[in-house]
């Protein structure tokens, strides 16, 4: 059971740490943003509290130390600068690393934690902060029991508490609850630099906030002292946050202020109506009206609020009570609406199992269709057709469950660009477009490394140093655009920079030097660009830690092709380079074109197929060894799959050419017969067959036999290599 809770904490912590990274990167650009400073503090505080609660003691200890420094930042004693952001990013990475291990494995990280804590301590000391702050950072971590505390049994709040809140208070609620917060800042609050309205903005970020300001305490102009605070507030906050998180917002002003945090509504979500307490009840509970007064007025059958005001109750207090009624009723309604269309968190393993089962179902469906064809029974046909329709719907719905927005991957690159900019001394901004574009989760997981390679290459080789950019009349700050968009059954991901563009002379010279081409060989621009994908090719004069070892672009192409995708490159000198990755939406079930070659069946991914044309036996004989036909006035090179797979048996009189597109060029593959489209559930090949060129997997057909899935891009490159097609 504990493991389950720890897993739940891990998932939540990963999300928090992702948020932290994003906020820190934003904070670096806007170092004075009080919202971001508060948000960073809050994340660290939440991680500390939850980690302690679930037995991750080393994380709790470490987060506590970092939090102490962030406290000083929040207090305005330490400024936010690049170094502090870097340190906090490192702390975030360290916590993430610790999260990967079991809770009990924390001890192995103590040395690394202490090293980072020491760096924070030095930073605090160098910032010239009063010794007390530096000392705070050196204090040993609070014992676990102090971090978690005990359960609070009282449903309503206390007036003030400065120690760690009880356990029931620190944890988030399952559903949003509503707090009434009565906040009267101390009269001298401005003098310690606090702006109370910013605290309200911070609260607003935690949920839905209604603000009722009381200005009746503001003094007449002749007596008013502008450095005094005369305003008070009633705040209604609907949030999932525990009371501790709410109180934390007021952490630095609580001692000098009057603060009451009261839980006034804790719906379970199954309330049949949204009606909240009556106005009179709220006013009586708040002590602004007497019960008898309300009863007497209620019998007069007029608007209660108006009559209470006539009866001497402060109009602003009545307004506040009405606001409370309205706020809670609105929140309850919203919660019920959300619950009726709520979502659940499911582990990706369970989804993978579901996809596997659907795959089996699709295979069975194919078998049912085939049996129906053989039996020819009208009742079975009806069942088969309905089954086919339902299985297709189930397949589409199941596949959509695995689709996740690519933005989850994009956000990691903001950090990469930031770190590399610093390392390379270049000013680079990254912009993302289409982060909401969805791809199968398994595809997204495998895209990370190729994209890292491309961004690293772009920053190291493509983008010029600021002085070179200025000399070329460009802004000193370079841009990288990371874009995702749908294109048919593919998603096209583009990495584009506004750097110097490819230096084709240097690429050519490098290829000659490495013996990849001869000095005399004539190459078009696109052929020169293709040289970048040759294994071990590099034009970099210096090997850096970022790139330049000649591993990268060939790896990128291989990995993308393993995903069934393609890579294309476009570049203009002085303007920049753009690399396009076209990736299939999913890897589990694809639409295929089933073909027969000899006795065997093969599947082309339908997304790669342009058209099918006939090729007569006579025409093929006439062509001899010249494997070209004329198609729509263009020369179409073709490969005979019978030859590639050494198929036996007689060739049919009329064969079919399946035309596919590879890197902008069409190539034909000659097959005996095109059977038709086929829902292809992709099965991996065993270890022995995994490295066969031109085959990417297998699928089971309706009759139980196996068809091999063709790796079209690989077949094309092998064909180009072996046949040396030229147009």
């Amino acid at each position, binding site marked *: 059971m504990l493991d389950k809770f720890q897993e739940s904490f891990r998932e939540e912590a990963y999300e928090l740490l992702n948020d932290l990274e994003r906020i820190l990167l934003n904070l670096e650009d806007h170092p004075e943003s009080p919202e971001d400073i508060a948000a960073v503090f809050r994340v660290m505080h939440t991680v500390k509290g939850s980690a302690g609660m679930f037995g991750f003691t080393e994380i709790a200890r470490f987060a506590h130390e970092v939090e102490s420094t962030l406290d000083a930042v929040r207090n305005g004693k330490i400024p936010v600068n690049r170094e502090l952001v870097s340190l906090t990013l490192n702390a975030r990475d360290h916590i993430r690393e610790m999260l990967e291990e079991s809770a009990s494995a924390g001890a192995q990280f103590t040395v690394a934690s202490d090293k980072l804590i020491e760096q924070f301590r030095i930073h605090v000391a160098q910032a010239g902060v009063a010794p007390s702050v530096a000392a705070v950072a050196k204090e040993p971590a609070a014992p676990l029991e102090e971090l978690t505390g005990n359960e609070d049994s009282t449903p309503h709040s206390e007036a003030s508490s400065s120690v760690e809140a009880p356990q029931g208070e620190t944890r988030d609620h399952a559903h949003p609850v509503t707090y009434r917060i009565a906040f009267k800042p101390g009269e001298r609050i401005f003098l310690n630099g606090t702006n109370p309205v910013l605290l309200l903005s911070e609260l607003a970020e935690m949920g839905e906030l209604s603000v009722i300001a009381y200005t009746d305490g503001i003094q007449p102009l002749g007596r*008013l002292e502008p450095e005094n605070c005369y305003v008070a507030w009633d705040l209604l906050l609907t949030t999932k946050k525990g009371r501790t998180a709410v109180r934390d917002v007021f952490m630095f002003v609580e001692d000098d202020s009057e603060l009451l945090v009261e839980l006034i509504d804790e719906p379970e979500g199954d309330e049949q109506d949204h009606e909240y307490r009556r106005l009179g009840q709220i006013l009586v509970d708040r002590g602004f009206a007497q019960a008898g007064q309300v009863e007497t007025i209620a019998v007069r059958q007029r608007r209660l609020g108006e009559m209470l005001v006539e009866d001497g109750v402060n109009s602003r207090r009545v307004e506040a009570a009405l606001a409370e009624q309205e706020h809670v009723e609105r929140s309850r309604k919203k919660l019920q609406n959300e619950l009726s269309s709520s979502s659940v968190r499911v582990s990706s393993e369970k989804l993978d199992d579901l996809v596997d089962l659907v795959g089996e179902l699709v295979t069975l469906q194919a078998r049912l269709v085939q049996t129906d064809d053989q039996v020819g029974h009208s009742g079975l046909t009806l069942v088969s057709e309905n089954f086919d329709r339902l299985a297709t719907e189930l397949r589409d719905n199941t596949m959509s469950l695995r689709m996740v927005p690519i933005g989850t991957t994009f956000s990691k690159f903001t950090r990469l660009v930031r770190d590399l900019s610093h390392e390379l001394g270049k000013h680079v901004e990254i912009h993302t477009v289409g982060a909401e574009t969805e791809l199968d989760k398994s595809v997204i997981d495998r895209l990370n490394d190729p994209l890292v390679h491309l961004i690293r290459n772009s920053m190291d080789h493509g983008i010029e140093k600021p002085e070179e950019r200025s000399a070329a009349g460009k802004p000193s700050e370079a841009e990288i655009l990371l874009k995702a968009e749908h294109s048919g059954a593919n998603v096209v991901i583009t990495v584009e920079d506004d750097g110097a563009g490819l230096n084709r002379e240097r690429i050519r010279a490098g290829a000659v030097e490495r013996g990849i081409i001869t000095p005399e060989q004539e190459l078009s621009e696109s052929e020169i660009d293709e040289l970048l994908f040759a294994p071990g090719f590099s034009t970099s004069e210096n090997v850096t830690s970022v790139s330049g070892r000649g591993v990268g672009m060939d790896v990128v192409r291989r990995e993308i092709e393993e995903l069934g995708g393609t890579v294309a490159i476009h570049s203009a000198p002085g303007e920049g380079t753009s690399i396009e990755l076209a990736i299939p939406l999913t890897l589990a079930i694809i639409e295929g074109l089933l073909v027969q070659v000899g006795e065997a069946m093969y599947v082309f991914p339908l997304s790669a197929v342009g058209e099918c044309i006939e090729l007569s036996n006579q025409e093929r004989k006439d062509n001899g060894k010249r494997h070209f036909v004329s198609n729509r006035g263009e020369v179409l090179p073709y490969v005979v799959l019978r030859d590639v797979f050494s198929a036996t048996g007689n060739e049919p009189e009329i064969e079919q050419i399946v035309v596919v597109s590879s890197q902008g060029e069409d190539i034909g593959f000659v097959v005996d017969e095109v059977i038709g489209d086929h829902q292809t559930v992709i099965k991996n090949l065993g270890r022995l067959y995994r490295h066969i060129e031109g085959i990417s997997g297998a699928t089971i057909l309706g009759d139980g036999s196996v068809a091999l899935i063709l790796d079209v891009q690989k077949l094309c490159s092998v064909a180009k290599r072996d046949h040396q097609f030229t147009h």
Partner: protein
Amino acid sequence: MSENIKVLSPEGVVGIESCNELRVQLLQAFDTADTVLLNFGHIERVDLSFVQVIYSAVREARIRGIGFRLNGEVSKEVGEYLLAGGFCKEAPTQARELENNLVELQDT
């Protein structure tokens, strides 16, 4: 008989450091003018200190029977600040909107 109008145009950040000066200027204006105009057009940011001065000035002018008008465009930052503090129901873009929409001042 011509009306004596006094216009005050504070600039930039109007907060705790400059609010006493504004308060004194308002008091002097109330002593000498029939109508006082406070121009928001050049104010970039404000804090609670400024808000308190405005509330106090509106009430003072009403007690004295003097016209106190707010005019000019309200900057985005100022509008959002007033909204966040619960001093109006919607972020104003024109100061004139504020005259009748500052909470607790509508009906007094």
